[in-house]
């Protein structure tokens, strides 16, 4: 299974590139395409509706983060409340209510969706139509942080079990088993992420190039660079005329860099912006 992340500034054409890439890959093997953008537009691109559909041999998913979050929190709440005292139920209820409405959890839900799909298998290629740069960067680093947190919890839980074993003898511990499962699953997903291809989409505008430069310096890698909207006409308002000086020479540039390294791209962007 190979993962492809298509990322870039908002509006540069990530969805178009992701859909095209998925279409090309689907000729070689089973392909799924998932959008982690909270304002997803894969449905608009394919003129289809719903959170999941099949089109041109591609399995397309655009999960609705708020409803997935509500559903997941409801399940956890049911499981927890089935086994605790009513007093605690009152104490904990607000946390579940807050969690299901907290927008910062949308990114985690999207991470879960991609992780679930990637680990479940069933396809040879998984193309992720990412959200705009900020959301994508958060997504990239969330997995690592989550793994650290699970490992930390596991380590302290094991310490506790060792101490308990000295007084009460060895017993099975459901929490340790659960943490172990989560660590292994998150590690497996991280391995997939490390072997993933990053397709960066940009366009020849100063804003987009500057954002690309900042992002690449942070990620320090890129596998494919797509410079989109090169041949089309760029209509700029008068107020942005200054930028035109940067953009016009770019129109004659080659639309892609061959086998790029992020350093080369960064250097090239710096030259253009100078």
């Amino acid at each position, binding site marked *: 299974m190979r993962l492809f992340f298509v990322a870039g500034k908002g509006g540069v054409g990530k969805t178009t590139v992701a859909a095209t890439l998925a279409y090309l890959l689907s000729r070689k093997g089973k392909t799924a395409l998932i959008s982690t953008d909270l304002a997803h537009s894969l449905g608009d691109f394919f003129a289809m509706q719903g959170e999941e559909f099949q089109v041109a041999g591609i399995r397309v998913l655009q999960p609705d983060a708020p409803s997935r979050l509500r559903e997941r929190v409801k399940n956890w709440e049911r499981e*927890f409340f089935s086994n605790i005292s009513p007093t605690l139920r009152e104490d904990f209820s607000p946390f579940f209510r807050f969690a299901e409405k907290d927008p910062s959890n949308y990114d985690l839900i999207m991470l879960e969706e991609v992780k679930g799909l990637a680990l479940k298998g069933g396809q040879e290629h998984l193309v992720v139509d990412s959200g705009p740069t900020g959301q994508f960067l958060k997504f990239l680093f969330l997995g690592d942080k*989550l793994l650290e947190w699970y490992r930390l919890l596991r380590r302290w839980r094991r310490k506790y079990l060792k101490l308990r074993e000295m007084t009460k003898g060895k017993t099975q511990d459901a929490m340790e088993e659960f943490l172990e499962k989560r660590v292994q699953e998150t590690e497996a997903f991280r391995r997939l992420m490390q072997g993933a291809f990053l397709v960066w989409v940009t366009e020849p505008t100063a804003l987009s190039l500057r954002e690309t430069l900042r992002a690449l310096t942070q990620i320090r890698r890129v596998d494919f660079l797509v410079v989109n909207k090169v041949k089309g006409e760029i209509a700029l308002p008068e107020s942005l005329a200054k930028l035109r000086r940067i953009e016009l020479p770019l129109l004659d540039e080659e639309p892609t860099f061959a086998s790029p390294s992020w350093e080369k791209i960064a250097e090239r962007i710096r030259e253009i912006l100078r």
Partner: protein
Amino acid sequence: MGKLKDWLSGFFRGAFSDTLFADLEREAKEVEEIVLVLALLQFSGLENPFSFYALELLPFMEITPYSLRRLISKEERLGYLFSRFEGWA
């Protein structure tokens, strides 16, 4: 002779073994609470980026109104936690 043996074993248990076991149990309880605090940092007023995943862990924890109150109100729990925390980044 039998009485002396019982007395000696009782003395040994009272003076060493029970104390040791009590210490171990107290230590285990404290470490268990560390796991609770690490999982539920948000209850102590600290930001926990994974508070969402902590909800999934709740059924595995032995949470009592007493432990919850300690988690929320006792500042020294955090001091204790961070004094032992090796992996915090």
